[in-house]
């Protein structure tokens, strides 16, 4: 069997596709009986756009269209011209419903105008290459590109079988895709490893089609058949991925100098937090929430094998949340190996300083801590299992350690009011020295999330996101079962209030980027504070009163007001709650502690920490001493 896996737009150009890498490794288990190749058509599309638009759509614009405009559905609509084989497909309607700026719409429309030619050329090339099977993997905005290519291949070469899988095919979505698009022969509506193994065996004659888990297929009369659901794969069944074609394609690409090469590796699937408390807005784990962690030694061996094989030190872990076992097994080993890795990891926000230090020592540079809010009431609505002060702590500590933390503020929760944010707004200028959010945005209603599954939580009416209706020629009742993003009633803050929050976040970003710092140094007679936060008096002073020193020391980890009262009495013999409360008030006024939900957290970072910040390109545009160094 000759099989071609195609990675369609809008997969990032900066890293290979994990799913395809794993399936290629599985195919190798069958030796010469299966020949597989991977084609990174996403890179081809980026190159095509670059050439045809005379560089107006360069790699940065490709990434922008595919990632930044996800919630506008740009990536899906762009390929509707190819799917329907029309030069232009409902562009006036899309322009009206997308809410895109004129400039962005022009960009999207230009790509839309080119998509049909790209797909047709690509289908011709694939059809002439004598593959028996074409595999397509679809996540987020890859659905229309995959379907457009599949339809065209089938038109040219009906003998080539098409199989589709990926997150967009999970559960009911995959069945609906199969029923709606007859040119798709098979859909895998669950995890692919065991399904693909059995599929190969079926093609080799050693397995019945009915025995392929999660497979959706057609019987001889053309009726869709749905097999039993696959057991979730254990991580021991998941081999290390193979990425040869990705690296070969990038290195020979005219865009090579703009591609930031990364290796993608997977240590875990599912979410150990979500198993117990499913975050109300999150649908990312689909039907595979059960947490499964790869053996630590195996993970380390696979990581270094990939590093050496592809001579790349930048690592993206695909895990939705790091396994806590890895703090005992994987991270100490990575630290000891003394490689200069640059690793991305998603973590839970309640990590302690020593755990963050270990991440840093192991080569982790980028965290996605899933902060989402600094307001405990909102975090409770999310069932996040963290508090506002815990989130400030992880931001403070990651800033101190030089770990980049990427996070957003999510709004639009059912019982939310603007007043909920007032306490944070009042103190936002005190946070100028810690990493700000990338943006503030309204939550999207995602399939598989509790907000989707339980309308009684607050989103009683919903419909598929508007852009799907403009992209597909399908009734709403079909889209309801096929798509990932939905629109519900607007909840929580108003649009005007959202804009106000966005403006505050922009001010925070600016203050941080100008080099704001707030540091502490413990000396014999107290704590030295050096404060250069934007908007604050730039000075150095000694905090020497015992109670102030105790509070700043004890609130390195968050403490409640009551706990601080008790500590003041126990350690300093201060029995007056009023004195403690007034001291807390004064420390808050100086921006030395952050208060939320009657808990307090100290804000200064350690004086002896190296915090190097670089903003703007490393292109030396004549601004000396640009970065702030603490």
């Amino acid at each position: 069997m000759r099989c071609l896996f195609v990675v369609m737009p809008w997969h990032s150009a900066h890293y290979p596709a994990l799913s395809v890498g794993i399936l290629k490794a599985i195919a190798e288990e069958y030796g010469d009986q299966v020949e597989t190749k991977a084609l990174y058509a996403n890179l081809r599309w980026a190159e095509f756009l670059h050439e045809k638009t005379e560089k107006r759509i360069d790699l940065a614009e490709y990434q922008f269209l595919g990632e930044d405009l996800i919630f506008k559905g740009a990536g899906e609509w762009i390929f509707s011209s190819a799917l329907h084989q029309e030069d232009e497909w409902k562009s006036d309607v899309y322009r009206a419903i997308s809410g895109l700026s004129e400039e962005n719409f022009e960009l999207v429309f230009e790509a839309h105008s080119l998509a049909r030619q790209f797909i047709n050329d690509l289908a011709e090339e694939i059809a002439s290459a004598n593959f028996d099977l074409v595999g397509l993997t679809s996540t987020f905005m890859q659905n229309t590109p995959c379907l457009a290519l599949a339809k065209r291949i089938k038109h040219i070469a009906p003998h080539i079988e098409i199989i589709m899988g990926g997150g967009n095919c999970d559960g009911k979505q995959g069945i609906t895709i199969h029923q709606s698009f007859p040119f798709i022969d098979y859909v895998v509506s669950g995890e692919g490893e065991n399904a693909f193994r059995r599929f190969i065996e079926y093609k080799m004659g050693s397995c019945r089609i009915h025995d392929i888990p999660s497979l959706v297929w057609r019987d001889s009369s053309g009726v869709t058949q749905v097999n039993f659901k696959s057991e979730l794969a254990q991580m021991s069944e998941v081999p290390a991925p193979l990425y040869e074609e990705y690296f070969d394609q990038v290195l020979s690409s005219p865009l090579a100098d703009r591609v930031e090469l990364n290796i993608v590796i997977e240590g875990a699937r599912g979410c150990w937090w979500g198993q117990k408390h499913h975050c109300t807005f999150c649908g990312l784990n689909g039907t595979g929430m059960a947490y499964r962690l790869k053996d630590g030694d195996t993970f380390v061996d696979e990581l270094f094998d990939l590093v050496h094989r592809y001579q790349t030190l930048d690592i993206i872990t695909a895990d939705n949340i790091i396994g806590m076992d890895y703090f005992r097994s994987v991270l100490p080993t990575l630290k000891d190996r003394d490689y200069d890795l640059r690793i991305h990891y998603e973590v839970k926000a309640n990590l302690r300083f020593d755990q963050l230090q270990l991440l840093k020592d192991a080569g982790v540079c980028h965290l996605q801590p899933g902060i989402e809010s600094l307001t405990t009431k909102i975090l409770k609505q999310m069932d996040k299992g963290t508090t506002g002060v815990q989130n400030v702590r992880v931001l403070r500590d990651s800033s101190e350690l030089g770990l980049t933390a990427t996070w957003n503020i999510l709004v639009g929760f059912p019982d939310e009011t603007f007043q909920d944010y007032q306490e944070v707004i009042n103190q936002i200028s005190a946070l100028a020295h810690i990493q700000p959010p990338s943006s503030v945005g309204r939550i999207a209603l995602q399939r598989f999330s509790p907000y989707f599954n339980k309308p009684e939580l607050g989103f009683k009416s919903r419909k598929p996101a508007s852009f799907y209706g403009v992209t597909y020629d399908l009734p709403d009742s079909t889209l309801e079962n096929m798509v990932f993003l939905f629109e519900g009633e607007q909840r929580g803050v108003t649009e005007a209030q959202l804009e106000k929050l966005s403006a505050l976040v922009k001010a925070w970003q600016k203050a941080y980027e100008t080099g704001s710092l707030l540091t502490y140094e413990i000396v014999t007679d107290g704590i030295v504070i050096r404060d250069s936060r934007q908007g604050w008096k730039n000075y150095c002073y000694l905090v020497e009163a015992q109670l102030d020193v105790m509070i700043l020391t004890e609130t390195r980890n968050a403490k409640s007001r009551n706990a601080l009262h008790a500590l003041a009495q126990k350690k300093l013999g201060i029995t007056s709650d009023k004195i403690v409360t007034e001291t807390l008030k004064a420390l808050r006024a100086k921006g030395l502690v952050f208060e939320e939900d009657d808990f307090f957290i100290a804000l200064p970072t350690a004086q002896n920490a190296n915090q190097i910040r670089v903003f703007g390109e490393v292109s030396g545009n004549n601004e000396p001493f640009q970065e702030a160094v603490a």
Partner: protein
Amino acid sequence: MSATTQHKYDNHGALLELDTCQIANTDVKRLCDTGIKTVQINGKIDLVSDGQANASICLDFLSFLKEATARGLVVNWWLDNDGSIDTTLYTHLWPPLLEEGEQSISVATWQQTYRFGKCYWRNGGQFIEVIDKRDLHNQFQHLIDENPMLEIFKAAHKPVSRQGLVAISQEALHDLEAANLVISRGPLCLTMPYRVIDWPIPYRSI
């Protein structure tokens, strides 16, 4: 209430003065761990002259400056004999200062073009990756994965005898010098990129 004493601790423990003769034996990591933020060098540094005495001071200083830059340590220092210096070689390192009233195109250029992370290397075990953005118009990513080049690059992380490197491979040394990754002063050699120690925020900005 919070008692404060204004300015008493300004620069407390954060500034260290070093004479040029102390540089070779200075442990930069230890300085940073103790909270030192700025080091001031007493005496000017000549980066050009090839005489044996100056070669040693020059490369010891550059070795110190590499690690200081990598650790985000500010170095107040002054350049001697700046007339013939090719600043392109050095703009990844913390730049010199000018004395009051002094003018120098070289120093001004260096100050204007310095950015953190313009030229550094990463250890990949069986290979080394070097990022070199010192010349904005010719930016490189070098992969060094074979001996003797790998051996020479690692050996010259600190000032070493040129003769010793020639003995490993004159050709490989020549290639590294041609790429401005190794410089020679008198009988000594030194690699120019620093090893990355602390990544900046944002982490992909270099």
